[in-house]
């Protein structure tokens, strides 16, 4: 067999839906279960890795349930798979259960809302490289924007379970309260520190909320909230690590803050993808070449989606 890859089995697998819960106006949490080879592959899923879901044959919701701004998009027959990262992985009785947090934004996620318990979906994954934990860190700072919360929830769980020496703190941002992808978001676990999100609290991770319009928590961009917090932080930059996922503009700001304060920083990037497996070369991320002014394009799917913030060239 002519084969130079050592990669594990990446499917395609069939996963069976166990729940598809609406958790906000446009937010859902899809829970999927894998058995046998799929369970084995996804059991080792790292926070930040992703998978490609084939939703082309998933039906649309009835027209009365299609939001007005998506009526035109819903008409489009989709072709390509869609990449999603995961907010949780549970291994139980030889089965692997995974959660995907998603927001309804177009024809594919609209179709996704009609998946219900017992349905199956074809998945290629796990794909890409997840977040990694360098030695010697004492504090992990998780900065999320909108839907970017998903993989950082998974990371919070892994940090708590496997990295006892590291304290994690989450900074969750969105445009408005309604766009925070959390359930029971403002349960007042710790009013003194701002707002605390149950999703992070269950891993013992403190969280601060920021909304651009001030409808919840800190009024302003989450990066401002984060910056202010850093100004009061007790630890040296080398003891901390920043993990971030969200809109690219926010990631650029996070990278800038990290650089200024000399804090290691990993960013989960997003690109339009066709294959997700390193073939199509669509999802290029411009990266600096060490010690030179030249840049190269790395592939978000295979080289990322998590990158060291120092590598990324952000378009202004």
């Amino acid at each position: 067999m002519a084969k130079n890859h050592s990669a594990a089995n990446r499917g395609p697998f069939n996963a069976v839906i166990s729940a598809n819960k609406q958790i906000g106006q446009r937010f859902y949490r899809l829970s999927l279960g894998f058995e046998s080879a799929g369970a084995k592959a996804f059991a080792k899923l790292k926070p930040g890795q992703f998978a490609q879901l084939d939703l082309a044959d998933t039906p649309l919701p009835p027209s009365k349930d299609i939001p007005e701004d998506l009526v035109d998009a819903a008409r489009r027959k989709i072709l390509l798979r869609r990449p999603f990262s995961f907010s949780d992985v549970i291994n139980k009785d030889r089965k692997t259960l995974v959660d995907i947090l998603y927001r309804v934004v177009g024809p594919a996620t609209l179709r996704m809302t009609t998946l219900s318990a017992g349905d199956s979906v074809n998945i290629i994954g796990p794909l890409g490289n997840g977040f990694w934990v360098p030695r010697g860190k004492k504090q992990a700072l998780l900065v999320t924007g909108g839907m970017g919360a998903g993989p950082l929830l998974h990371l919070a769980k892994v940090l708590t379970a496997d990295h006892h020496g590291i304290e994690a703190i989450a900074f969750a941002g969105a445009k408005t309260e309604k766009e925070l992808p959390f359930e029971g978001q403002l349960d007042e676990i710790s009013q003194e520190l701002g707002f605390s999100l149950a999703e992070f609290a269950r891993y013992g991770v403190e969280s601060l909320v920021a909304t651009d319009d001030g409808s919840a928590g800190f009024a302003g961009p989450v990066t401002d909230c984060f910056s202010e917090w850093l100004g009061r932080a007790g630890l040296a930059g080398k003891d901390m690590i920043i993990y971030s996922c969200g809109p690219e503009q926010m990631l650029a700001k996070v990278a800038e803050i990290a650089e200024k304060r000399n804090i290691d920083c990993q960013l989960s990037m997003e690109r339009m993808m066709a294959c997700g497996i390193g073939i199509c070369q669509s999802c290029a991320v411009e990266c600096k070449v060490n010690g030179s002014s030249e840049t190269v394009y790395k592939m978000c799917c295979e080289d990322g989606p998590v990158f060291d913030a120092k590598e990324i060239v952000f378009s202004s």
Partner: protein
Amino acid sequence: MEEAVDISVDFAGIRLANPVFTASGTCGYADELADFTDVNALGGFITKSITLKPKKGNATPRIVETDSGMLNAIGWANIGLDKFIEEKLPIIEKMSAAVFVNVAGESIDEYAAVAEHLAGEAAIAGFELNISCPNVAKGGITFGTDAVQVTEITSAVKKAAGEKILMVKLSPNVTDISVIARAAVEAGADALSLVNTFTAMVIDIETGKPVLANKTGGLSGPAIKPIAVYLVNKVYNEVAKNRGIPILGSGGIRTASDAVEFIIAGATAVAVGTANFIEPGCAAKIVEGIKKYCVRKKITNIKELTGSLGIG
């Protein structure tokens, strides 16, 4: 029962185990799909475009999905000839499919140089001359839409290619594809590959700008299949049939039924492209599906099917 069906084909003098290829740019340089499918089940394999020097490719977004299709404007991002020879050829040597290297460049000399460097490599069956890529500023489609230039570049690369098969990949973005096909064949092309993608644009109505950084891209996928079938049939009738030139048909093939349509239209073999992105194992499935079709239709040799289009 299936042994009774012979789906092997003669393609410009070489024997292929079956008529199914994977198309350039949709299957990597060598065995990148091997994690998902048996690459040795393929009849043929066409590498990503190779240029003399490595190319970074275009800025992003490089793709956008459309109704039953997608636009791409990758811009020949590739590792370059030297790295291809060093890293990929050893893997290609072990592949059982007939491997064609897709050759690209900004000048005729560059195309010829790539072919010349690889002409002595036993692992390679031949070349696919990319004079139809719509996503680069220099080269590609600028050569493929003018018959005089097609003649010039085909002759130059034919000379450089030595004994290897030279297949010319045609652009559908021309007034009369047969004029270009004829120019390629008369200049020495051993086979024709058609079609490349259709130049297209998607506009973001919120910003009023094209979605792709390159502004335009090449449309592929099921959306283009009926046009591609028509063009294959046209070139088969007007150019290829009488000259005994095989056609590699492509454009939106996802299923065995799609592949059979192209073969009936006049293709000796077919290439699966965009579908590899969605279903990496689909080319192998198509091989099996073609066999089943032949059994059902009592066809014992697939060559009975090539160009068998019934009219009237």
